């Protein structure tokens, strides 16, 4: 991210980055599935079965199997994901607000829905003293924003608005849909990876090796492709997980920038994020599996504050310092204590 990027420039950069990531992800999955079918086809082009008819692999079964498993998992996530999550956290829906805090929350959600030009999501409160918030819902017109009681107690109105703005950003960007789909693809890869290697161990790969013996000249390309393909499958669970985590972090940055667009007050979000990170109250209602949906990682995973390969694989959220730095950039402030931050005078002269 170049220095001094305003919020619209940051949004555009984030969108580009996640488009590239998602495209790369889909190409990789296609290679794992239909790439296998292609290799199979190439290696059996001249193959003949015991009855003398062609045994060429035409039907792209591997690709279709992978796609079908992913589709089934995505369907399950679409259909049940939001309800299951809200149930699991024990959230209650606020239909008619009672008391000042609930009224304020409902008002703030209405304000942010207006700012986003979206339909008002339903509002939920999670009985948990740990301050956090998440959004869910597969469609932007059937969405939910849930905040914990701890969040209501801890944040002032502007900070609450900024947090709700972040969740509204996820809603209008359809992030829950995107992440559900990508997670389903990761799951499908994991299932086939597991199943495939179990089959090989029990000698299921025998047929394939026989047919590759059958092939005629020009086999070198097939062998290279096959080796590449097998290596891809070996590393596939790690690679897909890495990519989906990276997309998720990119969408967090984007939702931060959306919040800044809606509130025109990025400082409020950075102060809210700092407060959430400082909180020592552990979560009781938010399950670990839904940590990636929250505005900041409720389990304060040590990976979230690090950079490097391991953190890229593990962290559900970008490092807080970087989020705050980008928000301050949108507010045309330089972040305090950052090595690259120049003193105000120098920054103005440069």
């Amino acid at each position, binding site marked *: 991210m170049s220095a001094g990027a305003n919020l619209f420039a940051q949004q555009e950069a984030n969108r580009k980055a996640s488009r590239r990531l998602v495209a790369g992800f889909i190409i990789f999955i296609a290679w794992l599935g239909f790439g296998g079918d292609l290799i199979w086809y190439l290696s059996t082009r001249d193959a003949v079965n015991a009855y003398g008819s062609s045994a060429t692999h035409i039907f792209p079964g591997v690709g279709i199997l992978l796609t079908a498993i992913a589709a089934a998992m995505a369907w399950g996530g679409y259909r049940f994901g939001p309800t299951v999550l809200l149930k699991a956290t024990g959230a209650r829906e606020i239909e008619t607000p009672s008391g*000042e805090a609930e*009224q*304020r929350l409902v*008002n*703030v959600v*209405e*304000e*942010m829905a*207006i*700012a*986003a*030009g979206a339909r008002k999501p339903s509002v939920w409160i999670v009985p948990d003293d740990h301050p956090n918030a998440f959004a869910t819902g597969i469609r932007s017109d059937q969405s939910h924003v849930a905040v914990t009681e701890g969040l209501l107690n801890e944040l002032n*109105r502007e900070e609450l*608005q900024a947090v709700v703005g972040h969740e509204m950003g996820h809603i209008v960007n359809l992030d829950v849909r995107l992440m559900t789909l990508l997670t389903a693809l990761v799951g499908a890869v994991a299932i086939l990876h597991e199943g495939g290697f179990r089959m090989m161990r029990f000698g299921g790969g025998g047929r394939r090796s026989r047919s590759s013996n059958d092939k005629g000249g020009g086999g070198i390309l097939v062998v290279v492709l096959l080796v590449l393909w097998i290596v891809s499958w070996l590393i596939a669970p790690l690679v897909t997980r890495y990519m989906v985590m990276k997309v998720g972090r990119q969408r967090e940055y984007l939702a931060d920038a959306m919040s800044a*667009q*809606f509130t*025109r007050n990025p400082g409020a979000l950075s102060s809210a994020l700092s407060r959430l990170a400082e909180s020592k109250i552990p979560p009781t209602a938010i399950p670990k599996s839904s940590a990636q949906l929250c505005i900041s990682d409720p389990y304060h995973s040590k990976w979230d504050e690090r950079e490097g390969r391991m953190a890229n694989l593990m962290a559900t959220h970008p490092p807080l310092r970087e989020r705050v730095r980008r928000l301050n950039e949108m507010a045309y402030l330089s972040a305090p204590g950052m090595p690259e931050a120049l003193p105000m005078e120098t920054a103005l002269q440069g």
Partner: protein
Amino acid sequence: MFTIVLLVLIVGFVFFAISAYNRLISLKNQVVNAWKQIDVQLKRRHDLIPNLIETVKGAMNFERETLEAVVSARNTAIAASTGGNVAATAQAETQLTGALSRLLAVVEAYPDLKATGNVAQLQEELTATENKIGFSRQLYNDTATQYNTAQQTFPTMLFAGMAGASPATLWEITDDAERAVPKVDLSFGAPKG
């Protein structure tokens, strides 16, 4: 071969033209909708005021003047909006915004008043109402800017004429009083500016 290339180019261009045209039309409708949202929020504010006044009338007996200013500004705003004159509406709404922000300032100035539940509720409702109007204007301006940018940038600009697009006017502060930093008079009894 040449005809195939030409055909591909033509089909590509047609698809491209359709998407540019549709983008402009969609933006145009979004601008219209965002403009209507401002009206919705203004109407909401008009409907809210009688209830608000009713809840705080007892607690704020001594600030009769401020309350009356709000009521009369509201009535002027309603009359202006039914008249359909945009300039008059804008001015009346500006007046109302001013009267409401004075009311909010008064509430802020008296901690005893804030302590009563009704008034805290009033304060929240006023803040929310003003925010909603502000955010609906912001959305209108953002959408109108997108629409205008699409009309002025290549390649969508080529289809602006076909889509009947014309630049949308941004909402801006028309009244100098609203642009000025609000002056809060905290002295009791003295006439309110």
